[in-house]
């Protein structure tokens, strides 16, 4: 994936700035050397460091939810950021993934857990395709509200039909114990480190796929539809196929994320875990992070997952003791205020800040 081109490297050593001499190098995923090194180092570190040093609290309460939400955010970003279809049905599609993973894992106990994840993603994709059909006629905020239909209907369905929860009287689904390479990786007996590594593996693989998807033919078709759908249609992008593909692939990602939410993060969940607020949360991540940016999905997820934790601990850290209710209300206010603040400062998201930095790095150290 990462193209190391000898000539471009030599050029970057000779003068200021990094200039490319082949098309291959210019089209590389990470054309800037510093970026390449930082990303490679970050991915390596993510696999090695946290399982060794992070406490269970950090893994369980911070890193695993971050990864799961990042995956969902990538999914929504493909749909909203790249293909321009505003959706508020994320929670519903995640629920489809979670419940199909639960049904598959309990009905076929010997099925490899990775296969279960992929299959539940496919089920979510099928449901997403169905609910994507109205997008051919309905646009903008009308579509956003229309996707709420899928959100409410799906959650109602899982609540109402006991078959989905294997007739559990509590109405909750619980991740069963499953092993991968002899290690218990999901369920109550798994360690946080094992679940973290599985989540990280999934996110890494799917992020690479998404990154390549959006810079290829499919991604360009999505962006054409997003920017001006009639013009795109005229130059030969088929709206039906392109929009439905966006809904399908996006729902696949959300479905896998939903399965991860239950199997890797929560352990057990009821439909409440997939209500409308989760759809908004993921949409926040996408917009704060940056619409149309894979990196932005990660930054947004980190921001939204970390922010409540920071806010919850901040008064304690500066020695302030507040009543629980008051603290909760202040948290809400600061959270809302920060969202507005970030939108005002950089409406194109956190990823845009990184992009500006990268432009500077490309010509580093002499900008002229």
């Amino acid at each position: 994936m990462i193209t190391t081109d000898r000539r471009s490297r030599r050029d970057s050593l000779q003068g200021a700035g990094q200039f490319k001499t082949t098309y291959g190098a210019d089209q590389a995923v990470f054309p800037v050397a510093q970026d390449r090194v930082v990303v490679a180092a970050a991915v390596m570190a993510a696999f090695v460091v946290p399982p060794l040093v992070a406490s269970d609290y950090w893994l369980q309460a911070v890193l695993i939810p971050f990864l799961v939400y990042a995956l969902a955010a990538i999914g929504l970003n493909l749909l909203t950021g790249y293909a321009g279809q505003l959706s508020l049905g994320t929670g519903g599609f995640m629920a489809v993934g979670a419940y199909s993973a639960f049904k598959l894992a309990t009905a076929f106990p010997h099925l490899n857990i990775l296969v279960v994840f992929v299959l539940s993603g496919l089920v979510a994709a099928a449901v997403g395709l169905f609910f994507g059909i109205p997008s051919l006629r309905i646009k903008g905020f009308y579509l956003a509200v229309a996707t709420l239909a899928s959100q409410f209907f799906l959650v109602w369905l899982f609540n109402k039909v006991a078959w989905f929860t294997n007739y559990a009287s509590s109405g909750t689904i619980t991740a069963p114990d499953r092993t991968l390479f002899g290690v218990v990786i999901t369920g109550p007996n798994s360690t946080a480190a094992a679940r973290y590594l599985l989540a990280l593996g999934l996110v890494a693989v799917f992020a690479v796929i998404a990154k390549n998807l959006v810079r290829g033919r499919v991604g360009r078709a999505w962006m054409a539809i997003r920017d001006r759908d009639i013009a795109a249609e005229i130059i030969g992008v088929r709206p039906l196929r392109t929009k439905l593909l966006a809904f399908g692939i996006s729902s696949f990602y959300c479905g896998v994320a939903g399965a991860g939410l239950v199997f890797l993060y929560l352990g057990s969940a009821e439909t409440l875990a997939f209500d409308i607020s989760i759809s908004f949360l993921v949409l926040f991540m996408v917009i704060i992070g940056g619409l149309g940016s894979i990196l932005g999905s990660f930054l947004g997820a980190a921001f939204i997952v970390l922010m409540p934790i920071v806010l919850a601990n901040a008064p304690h850290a500066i020695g302030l003791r507040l009543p629980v209710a008051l603290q909760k209300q202040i948290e809400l206010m600061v959270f809302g205020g920060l969202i507005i603040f970030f939108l005002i400062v950089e409406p194109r998201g956190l990823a845009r800040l990184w992009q500006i930095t990268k432009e500077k790095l490309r010509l580093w150290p002499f900008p002229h």
Partner: protein
Amino acid sequence: MVDLLYAVAVAPFKDMAGAPAFLIEVLIGGIFAGLMYSLVALGFVLIFKASGVFNFAQGVMVLFAALTLVGLLERGAPVVVALALTTVVMVALAFAIERLVLRPLVNQAHIILFMATIGLNFFLEGFGEMLWGANVKKLDIGIPDRSFIVRGVQINQLELTAAVTAAVLVTLLAVFFQRTRIGRALRAVADDHEAALSIGVPLKTIWIVVWSVAGVVAIVAGLMWGAKSGVQFSLSLIALKALPVLILGGFESVPGAIVGGLIIGVGEKLGEVYWGPLVGGAIENWFAYVLALTVLLARPQGLFGEKIIERV
């Protein structure tokens, strides 16, 4: 299969024909519920018309207005004074929103403004509860929640009051939009920001006015909903009930909000009473959305929305 078809397509209508008084009761209930939704949807429409902002915080504005009103009443203020003070608070809120949220974000994409109103949603929720407390409050405005019977049909007094209030409010708004100077300016802004600016319509003032009016509509909605089901956090969720009304009627249309509300209210009640039992009930959460979605498939801009004309 035949049984199923019978249960879906024949039995409900037989039930309706069998008990006309009950059907009328259901219909009236639906109309009242629909007008209550319209009250909330109106706030959305006003702001969308004049600024193109999809104001998700409308539901929380309703909650905030109701909380302020109840808080003032609890502290012993007479009803009239409390109403006046709440209006002042909502106008002040409109000023603050224009200055702190809208002005810095002018010319941004619609989705960014939409997100900003969701941020506002969180902020107001925390702020309102911090000021007035989070526990459930009773709002008593002197209208008893009683029913009386007219020709065998039960009518709830509170719902009737709400319906009349909604009708009066809509008439006032229609007059305001059509007949006053500011109303004309509002329509000009809704039509084209730049053209309105170029002939000297002050955009900032217009935004403050429109958010203030939406705030007043929120007070009325909060009053009615609060009297019906108590003032509590769940009041802000009625925004979610107003959304299908909104897309059904069309984002830009005041009459659309009313007609959409009536259709959703009646459809929801009929669906719940006659078809709900078939699928185990509790369908009101999604039924309105599916109904609105079906209409949208035929008319993508809603029933009364402005036709979307697309050019390359």
